[in-house]
């Protein structure tokens, strides 16, 4: 609808380490989405009784700013935001080596400053970078992207206007190296074949986003590369 090919992503910009106080942070612009992600931790579990003996507790809060949407959104967390916090955590936690930090918490915050369809996916892409930026050991970076259906065609990465008149939306979070999916949701109407096509489209796009994520980390850390090159490569490989 905006002149893109059916399998073309909206323009994507990633920045790593842009907040001062957070242990790790990242910013993503994906289409008109503008989203900040920050990580605190591993840090001491508080309250203490939530601590797990064999691994860190991963906590996640996905939240939309009141001014991020066409109509003002109440700042109180909606049912949608609570559900998304859960599925986003479940997409990232498999990548985090939480077993290295028993009794600690890793807290993940995602703030949507401007929403333009696909906020959960853009949030996951950014949060994964924020985790890496915090130096938390991960099995792999997580990339996320949605496919959908509009005017009878299976397409990649619907924008807000497209999403409102689209026939289906299929957000996917994917780890390309391990070839596994940590988030999958769908609403709308798809046949089995259309679904398979959409799933392949989304995982392909995730591979491209994954390369951009690696590049964003490289940008941030290339200055100190001489001393830390090997370390960084190990952590983010």
């Amino acid at each position, binding site marked *: 609808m905006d002149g893109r090919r059916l399998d073309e992503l909206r323009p994507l910009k990633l920045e790593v380490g842009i907040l001062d106080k957070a242990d790790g942070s990242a910013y993503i612009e994906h289409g008109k989405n503008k989203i900040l992600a920050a990580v605190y931790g591993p840090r001491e579990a508080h309250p203490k009784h939530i601590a*797990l003996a064999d691994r860190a507790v991963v906590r996640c809060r996905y939240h939309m700013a009141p001014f991020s949407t066409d109509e003002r959104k109440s700042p109180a967390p909606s049912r949608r935001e609570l*559900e998304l916090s859960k*599925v986003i955590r479940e997409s990232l936690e*498999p990548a985090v080596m939480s077993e290295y930090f028993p009794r600690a918490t890793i*807290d993940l915050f995602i703030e949507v400053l401007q929403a333009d369809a696909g906020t959960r996916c853009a949030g996951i892409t950014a949060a994964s970078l924020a985790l890496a930026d915090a130096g938390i050991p991960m099995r792999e970076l997580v990339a996320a992207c949605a496919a959908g259906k509009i005017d009878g065609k299976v397409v990649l990465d619907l924008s807000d206007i497209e999403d409102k008149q689209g026939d289906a939306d299929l957000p996917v979070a994917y780890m390309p190296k391990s070839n596994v*999916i940590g988030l999958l949701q769908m609403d709308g*109407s798809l046949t089995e074949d259309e679904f398979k096509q959409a799933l392949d489209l989304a995982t392909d796009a995730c591979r491209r986003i994954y390369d951009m994520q690696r590049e964003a980390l490289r940008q941030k850390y290339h200055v100190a590369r001489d001393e830390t090159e090997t370390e960084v490569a190990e952590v983010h490989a």
Partner: protein
Amino acid sequence: MSATHQLSPVAKLEQKAVHDLIVKGKRLDERGPLDYRSITIMMGTVEKANGSAYVYLGKTKVLAGVKIQTGTPFEDTPNEGILTVNAEFVPMASPTFEAGPPDEDSIELARVVDRGIRESKAIDLKKLCVQPGKKVFVVFVDLYILDHDGNLIDAAGMAALGALISAKMREFDVKDGEVTYKDKTMPLPILDYPVPITSVKIDGSIVLDPCLEEEQVTSCRLTVTTGKDDRICAMQKGGLGVFTPDEIKKIVSTAISKSRDLRQRVLSKVN
């Protein structure tokens, strides 16, 4: 904030027994991997509700009630009635349930069932408009989880569908924006019959309809909701594990064929 749950020590001991069975292709109650537990559906058990359905899925028990009242439509859909789905994890249903505001599990359950009904366009919401922009009918679906022995989503989805197709509302006339009811009743305008099918992954094996013990050893689940024409209308992955794309494609085709059977079972309860 959304956070990881802790598993009880007993569950951890049970894990091994259940796990060892599943990898051998067996299950605790000797079902096959793709078999559902016995399903009993009773329609209209709560007379004061417009519609209700009590579903037994093995030992899991869910009661769904439908209430229909008038309300104000949403601004972006002035000509359509409203669907709201809410889930109550009643504290008597499980030692792990606590009274209080809905937690993320109950919100997720309600939203997954809601998406199935909404996206399959199961209710013809346009027929529930009284006065455009001013007054419409609101269909409240309340899901009562009374006994938790696993696979709450499928049990709740069947209960919601049963309650909706058994629901009766008074026939009405509209005069100057006021509703006058007649003595006759009519069913809700139902267009589709969405059924959720949940598959779980236990150490690489896929099983359907997990009981609670099985659920506690699963790494992840995938719910696929399909309508009467085999189209997929909603999906939700849950849990800390991951699926490969091939596993997902296989689960989807199993779910599509399984849903035909379950849909028939719910529909056979309608007189």
